[in-house]
């Protein structure tokens, strides 16, 4: 083997090197781009189709103001211009250079020569690969007669003579390669009858770069790329990743949120306005509009909520407002996470209320559920003679004509649109909630349970269906092997939620339910919020108008209704001690008022069953089914019939106070 490395003098290697590198980059890029252009388009179209079918999405488009559509055109079309993006440019250039390289390789004699140096005994003897030994022998004899040095005509020139000799040697070698054992072995092992051939190791750089004149260029290129550019880009990338937190919050924003909560005193009361004030200090806004102050941002956000046109220094600032408002989505999710980090449930709940206010563009009030509907005349509604209507459910106890009067909507078409928005906002009816340990009958000490909530997604217009109408086996936890292995997989199979009715929000969005879990003992949040983005809303279109149906008749079939399974992973194990633990689960919608669920659950940690080891599996399984339903009944009625007594707080007041006081000093 040669020990010294040569540069690629004959341009044999570097085109291959370059070709490999180029193909490695261009081929995956092309595939992904093709996938994006063709398959994504399909997906987009199917989403559009689905949107056309969904009433809320359709109405959302209808009620979106032209100004917001304009904003969307500016900020959302960027992704659509697929054909002339820089990625495509790179792909085109890449393929052109690949073509040039191949052309070059084909026209390079050195490469062809090198390829010719490959030893093929069959070709030399002029026979096919499947020839028998006899054929080989006869071919060899014929050729050796022709090229044998003794048979060479005397009048040939020296070079021709050498050629002939060379050919004869080759023929002999080829023959031996096919007949002689050791030579044959050499051929098979090293590809040549003489044993290992010299391999050349070189640096795949074209020789013209090594010439004395351009070597300086090369050195500068090396230094600049490895000493300057590479560290520069790596540090840039690193700084950028360090600049944003896991939730895509700018680190400064995250820091300011944390500081707000550190400085938060009980004398400040958590309100939507307070959170909007905190949001307005976000670094993201500053990066968008460096000349504006937090006060400006706060005004813009308040303008959005109070449906006012924005002006900054006398100039129209609505486009700015839209950009700021659209960014709030990320900020609020980030803030929610910080609230959960502080385990502050009160703040997290207000954060979610702020989310709704910003998405719907209305202030927080007891009538928010009604005011999120389109076409409502606030003045007529608030001064209306009928009081005590604050919820969608209450609204639907009146007939359509009356609702028109209450909301101050005279136009019939508009009223029906308002009503279809109202009846398509998803609401929850809790059917059952359990702590489930996969494969266990109930929660045992130190097991890993998850929360399983069964809800009926319903419309405010529908008659409430009591839980008893659903037979228990409809509400049973699936005991499929797959579901036991990964209980959360079933949630992934649910459809994505449709685009929300939020015409005042600058971008199209989908509703998300953020699920918070807190201990009832100290109302502190246990874990980071779980975002529920998929849930079937098919029940909303079912007709069960509460004004028409007074009593659920015998024709009611629970199988017609789709039961929503919400499974929330718990970040902690069940405690090692036996006892009851109460948790509060808060499921809050990011988009709609009145679409929340707030429930208390009891986790009963019990002694693991003393199973006879001789019992076989089948028997055990049956047993567990029965027990599970018993157990769930117990948990359902926990509020009414638990003989568990709490700690007598009176005796511990003194200590408690001291402890609480420390917290209190915040």
């Amino acid at each position: 083997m040669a020990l010294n490395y040569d540069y690629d003098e004959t341009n044999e290697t570097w085109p291959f090197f370059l070709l490999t590198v180029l193909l490695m980059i261009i081929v995956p890029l092309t595939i992904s781009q093709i996938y994006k252009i063709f398959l994504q388009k399909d997906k987009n179209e199917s989403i559009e189709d689905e949107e056309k079918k969904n009433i809320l999405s359709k109405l959302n488009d209808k009620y979106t103001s032209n100004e917001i559509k304009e904003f969307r055109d500016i900020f959302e079309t960027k992704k659509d211009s697929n054909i002339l993006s820089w990625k495509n440019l790179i792909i085109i250039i890449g393929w052109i250079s690949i073509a040039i390289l191949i052309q070059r390789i084909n026209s390079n004699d050195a490469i062809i020569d090198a390829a010719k140096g490959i030893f093929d005994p069959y070709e030399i003897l002029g026979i096919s690969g499947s020839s028998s030994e006899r054929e080989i022998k006869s071919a060899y004899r014929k050729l050796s007669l022709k090229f044998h040095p003794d048979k060479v005509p005397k009048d040939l020139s020296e070079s021709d003579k050498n050629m002939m000799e060379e050919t004869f040697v080759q023929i002999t070698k080829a023959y031996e390669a096919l007949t002689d054992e050791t030579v044959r072995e050499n051929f098979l092992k090293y590809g040549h009858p003489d044993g290992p051939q010299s391999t050349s190791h070189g640096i795949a750089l074209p020789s013209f770069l090594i010439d004395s004149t351009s070597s300086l260029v090369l050195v500068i290129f090396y230094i600049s790329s490895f000493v300057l550019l590479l560290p520069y880009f790596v540090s840039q990338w690193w700084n950028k990743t360090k600049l944003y937190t896991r939730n895509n919050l700018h680190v400064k924003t995250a820091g300011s949120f944390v500081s707000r909560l550190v400085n938060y005193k009980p004398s400040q009361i958590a309100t939507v306005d307070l959170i909007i004030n905190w949001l307005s200090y976000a670094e993201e806004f500053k990066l968008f509009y460096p000349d504006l102050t937090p006060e400006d941002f706060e005004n813009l956000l308040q303008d959005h909520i109070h449906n006012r046109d924005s002006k900054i220094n006398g100039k129209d600032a609505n486009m700015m407002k839209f950009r700021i408002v659209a960014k709030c989505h990320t900020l609020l999710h980030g803030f929610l996470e910080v609230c959960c980090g502080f385990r502050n449930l009160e703040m997290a709940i207000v954060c979610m209320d702020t989310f709704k206010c910003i998405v719907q563009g209305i202030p927080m009030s007891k009538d928010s559920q009604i005011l999120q509907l389109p076409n409502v005349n606030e003045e007529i509604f608030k001064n209306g003679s009928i009081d005590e209507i604050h919820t969608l459910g209450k609204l639907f106890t009146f007939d359509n004509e009356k609702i028109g009067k209450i909301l101050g909507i005279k136009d019939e078409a508009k009223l029906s649109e308002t009503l279809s928005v109202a009846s398509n906002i998803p609401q929850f009816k809790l059917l059952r909630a359990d702590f489930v340990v996969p494969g266990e009958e109930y929660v045992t000490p130190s097991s890993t349970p998850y929360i399983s909530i069964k809800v009926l997604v319903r419309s405010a217009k529908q008659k409430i269906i009591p839980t008893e109408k659903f037979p228990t086996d409809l509400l049973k936890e699936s005991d499929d092997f797959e579901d036991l292995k990964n209980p959360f997989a079933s949630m992934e199979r649910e459809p994505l939620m449709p685009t929300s009715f939020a015409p005042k929000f600058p971008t199209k969005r989908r509703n998300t339910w953020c699920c918070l879990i807190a201990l009832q003992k100290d109302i502190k949040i246990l874990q980071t919020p779980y975002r529920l983005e998929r849930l079937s809303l098919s029940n909303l279109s079912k007709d069960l108008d509460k004004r028409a149906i007074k009593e659920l008749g015998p024709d009611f079939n629970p199988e017609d209704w789709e039961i929503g399974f919400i499974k929330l992973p718990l970040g902690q194990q069940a405690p090692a001690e036996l006892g009851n633990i109460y948790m509060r689960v808060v499921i809050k919608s990011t988009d709609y008022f009145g679409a929340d669920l707030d429930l208390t659950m009891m986790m009963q940690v019990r002694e693991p069953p003393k199973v006879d080891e001789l019992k076989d599996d089948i028997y055990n399984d049956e047993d567990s089914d029965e027990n599970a339903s018993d157990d769930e009944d117990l948990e359902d009625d926990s509020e009414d019939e638990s003989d568990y007594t709490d700690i007598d707080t009176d005796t511990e007041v003194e200590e408690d106070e001291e402890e609480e006081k420390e917290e209190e000093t915040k």
Partner: protein
Amino acid sequence: MTTILYNQNSKLIKCEDSDLTETREISINQINKLSAAIIAESNPNFTPQPNDEHSKMIKSLFESGLAMLKQKKMPEALKNIALAVDMAQRGRAPYEAFGIQLQEIQFMLRHKIDLSLITGRYLDALQDIEFLMNTGMNQADVYIRKSDALLKLSQFDEAKICCERGLSLHPNETKLKALMLEINRRLAEYNGDN
């Protein structure tokens, strides 16, 4: 930086800057309260021992309130007890033992809350209950009163949350269970689901 002014006679400090922040104002008030208390104190090595004179004054005011209660003069009773609470907050020095101050105010507030509820001042009662809860009171009766106050203020969702929490801390409390039924009934009506 704001500038503060010192009054030689009253020995109080104040700040008249327009950009006075809320926290600074609180801090100034705290210093003034402390100065007044220390100046009234003759012993230079004063201790957190509660001041007997203060205790006596507060007690007598509170008891006069209870006397009114016995005579069924609710508004007057409420007034006197509220005064006693206020007195305990204002009159006592900030360095008097915290444990005793806390117990005292909690005890008096419970009476005040009951009177507020009887006289229909639900919001006042609610705020006082929240004060109690934030200072570590978790007894069932606190939850009963809070749920009731919220119900009266038509905050049904809040009432339900409060009642559920009360029940999870005191699962056997029959009054809370009864309240829960009432809340659920009102909530169904509120949501038009009855």
